[in-house]
C-alpha cells in the first residue's frame, strides 16, 4: 500500500466501500430485490413473489436465454480459436507486419459496438453477402466484438512466457508441431481459459450491435431485457437480468475451474 498512516488508510477503505457500494452493489441488490418484488412503492418492496422469475425462465424468456447462451458459446469458442491462433501465429514476429496485424486485431475494441452493428448491417445487406435477417450476422457481430479481447489476453500471456522453454523442447528433439501440442498450448491453457471467460461475459451482455442486427428468431437476453424495460415492465426485466447474471456466472465459474486446474499443475 502506498498509504501508511492508519487513519488515512481507513479513510480510503471507507471511501472505496461507499463508492463501490453505491455504484456496483446497490444497483445489483435493487435488481435482485425487484426480481422477486410483488410491488414496490415505498423504500422496500411490498411483498415478495416468484412469478417474475418463473416467467423469466419459461416461454419466450427461456428461448431468449438459450439464444444468448448459444451465441456466447459460439462467439467465445470462435474468438478463442481465431484470437488464440492469431496470437500464436504472430508471436515472435516483429516489425511492420506485426504492428499492422496488432492494430487490425485491436480495432474493434476501439470502435463502438453500434458502429460495428451498423457496419455489418450495411456490408451484409446485399447479395452475394446477404446475411441480414439471419442469426449469422448476430454471431459475426459478437465474434468481431470479443475477438480483440481474446487475442490480447493470449498474446500478452505469450509475451510473458519464457521463450527458452520452447527452444529447449526443440533441442530435445521435438518437432515444431510437437512443441506446440505438448508445451506451448498446455502452457497457454490458463490464458486461453481466461480469454474464453472474458469473451463469454462480453458476449452475454452485448446489446449495442445486437439490437441493430437481430432477426426475430434470434433474440438475445439483453435485447429482451431492453424491450421489457422499454415497455416499463421493470420487475420482469429485473428477473431476466438475474437469469442473465446467473447464466454468465455459471459459465465463468466453469472456465475458472479449468484455469485454476491448468495453473496448478
Amino acid at each position, binding site marked *: 500500500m502506498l498509504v501508511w498512516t492508519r487513519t488515512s488508510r481507513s479513510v480510503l477503505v471507507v471511501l472505496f466501500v461507499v463508492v463501490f457500494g453505491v455504484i456496483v452493489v446497490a444497483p445489483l441488490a435493487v435488481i435482485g430485490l425487484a426480481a422477486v418484488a410483488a410491488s414496490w412503492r415505498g423504500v422496500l418492496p411490498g411483498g415478495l413473489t416468484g412469478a417474475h422469475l418463473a416467467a423469466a425462465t419459461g416461454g419466450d424468456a427461456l428461448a431468449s436465454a438459450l439464444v444468448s447462451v448459444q451465441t456466447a458459446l459460439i462467439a467465445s469458442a470462435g474468438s478463442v480459436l481465431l484470437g488464440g491462433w492469431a496470437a500464436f501465429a504472430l508471436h515472435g514476429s516483429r516489425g511492420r507486419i506485426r504492428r499492422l496485424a496488432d492494430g487490425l486485431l485491436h480495432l474493434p475494441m476501439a470502435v463502438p459496438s453500434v458502429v460495428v452493428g451498423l457496419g455489418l448491417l450495411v456490408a451484409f445487406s446485399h447479395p452475394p453477402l446477404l446475411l441480414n435477417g439471419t442469426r449469422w450476422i448476430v454471431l459475426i457481430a459478437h465474434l468481431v466484438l470479443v475477438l480483440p479481447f481474446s487475442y490480447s489476453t493470449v498474446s500478452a500471456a505469450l509475451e510473458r512466457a*519464457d521463450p*527458452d*522453454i520452447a*527452444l*529447449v*523442447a*526443440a*533441442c*530435445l*528433439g*521435438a*518437432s*515444431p508441431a*510437437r*512443441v506446440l501440442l*505438448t*508445451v506451448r498450448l*498446455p*502452457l497457454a491453457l490458463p490464458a486461453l481459459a481466461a480469454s474464453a471467460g472474458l469473451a463469454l461475459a462480453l458476449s452475454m451482455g452485448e446489446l449495442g450491435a445486437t439490437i441493430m442486427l437481430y432477426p426475430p428468431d434470434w433474440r438475445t437476453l439483453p435485447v429482451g431485457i431492453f424491450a421489457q424495460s422499454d415497455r416499463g415492465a421493470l420487475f420482469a426485466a429485473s428477473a431476466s437480468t438475474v437469469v442473465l447474471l446467473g447464466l454468465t456466472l455459471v459459465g465463468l465459474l466453469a472456465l475458472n475451474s479449468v484455469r485454476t486446474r*491448468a495453473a496448478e*499443475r
Partner: protein
Amino acid sequence: MSAAPAIQLRGVGVDYGRKTALADLDLTVERGETLALLGPSGSGKSTALKAVAGFVRPSRGRVLLEGRDVTDLPPHQRGIGVVVQNYALFPHMSVAANVGFGLRARRAPRAEIRERVAEVLDLVGMSAFADRSPRQLSGGQQQRVAIARALAIRPAVLLLDEPLSALDAALREEMVGELLRLRAELPDTTIVHVTHDQSEALALAHRIAVMRDARLVDVGPAREMYRTPRTEFTAAFLGAANLLPVEVVEVDGEGGATVRLGDAIMRARVSGELDGRRRAVLGVRPQRVGVHAEGTGGLPARLLAAQWRGEVFRLDLRLDGAAHSGQEVRVRAEVASIEGLPPVGGRVALTVPDGCPLIADASPEEET
C-alpha cells in the same frame, strides 16, 4: 567413430538487425573436451551457443557437428543437450516427465524411457524427486533436473549457458563439484560451458575461450590462460586485477624478461607477443602483491583504502611516481593481516614477486 572435432564454428557471424552479436567466430571443440566461454555481459557468449544449438541462424559462416554441416538444420534435428540459465523446466510436467521429454519426442519405447529417466535422475541425485513438480524444487535441484533432461537423450554435445549463475555462492561451489563428477562419468561428452565467473571456468574447463564485443579475443588451455595470459583483457578477466605498466629492460631467449617498475627491477615471464616493444604490462594478482611498512625497501605507495573481507584484507594503493607517462597507477592487494601497516592515508612499501606474466601493452607505443 569419426575423428572430426565435436564442434566446429567456421567464421560464424550473427547479426540482430544492424547489431552484430557475434563476429566471425572460428572455434573448434574436440570430442570429450570441456571448453569454457568466458566474457563480460553482452559479449556474445549466449549467441555463440545459440548458433551451435540452432536457436539462431548464423548470418555468415558454417556450423559443423562431428564434421557434418548442420548450419541449415533446425534444433530438433541436431541432438544437442542444452541447459539454459533459468533452466526452462516444463512447469506443467513432473520431474520424470521433464526428463523423459526428449525420449518421448524420439518415440522411444516406454520401458526404455522409464529406465533411462531413472538412470539419469540417479546420476544427478534426484531420484527421490521424480514425481515432484518443478515448482516444488529449489534452484539447485531445478538445475540438476535440467541437466538430467539434457543428458537423457545421450547428447554428444552438452551446452551449458551460465547454469550456475542463479545459485548462491555456497551452492555454486557444490554444483561445480557435481559437474566435475558428472564430466568424469561422461568422458565422451563434449561440453561448452558459458560463464562469466573465472573460477568456475578454471575449475571445469580444459580450455578457455575469452570473448569481448562479439569477438573471440583469446583461446587456450585453462592453465596457460591463467598463468600466461596473452592479452591484458584475458589477464584482467582471469583475476589479475593489477596490470602494472613496466619498462622492458631485457628479454632472454627462454621466455623470461627483466623489467623495471619504478626503481624496482624484477623478473617476468613473457606471455604475449612483445614485438620488441619497451613498454609492457605486468599482470599481478592481488594476492601476490606484498604490502609492508614504509622504509623496508620496495616501491613507495600510499594506502588509499582497506576493506576487511573475512579471510583477507583488500587494500587499495597508489604507486608513487609510477613509471607510466604521468598516469596514476592503482594497485589492489589482498593480505592476510594489516598488522604493522599505517592507517588509511599512510605510506607503505610494495613488493611485486618475480615470475609474473608480462603482456604487451595494448595501447600504441609512443614514439621516443
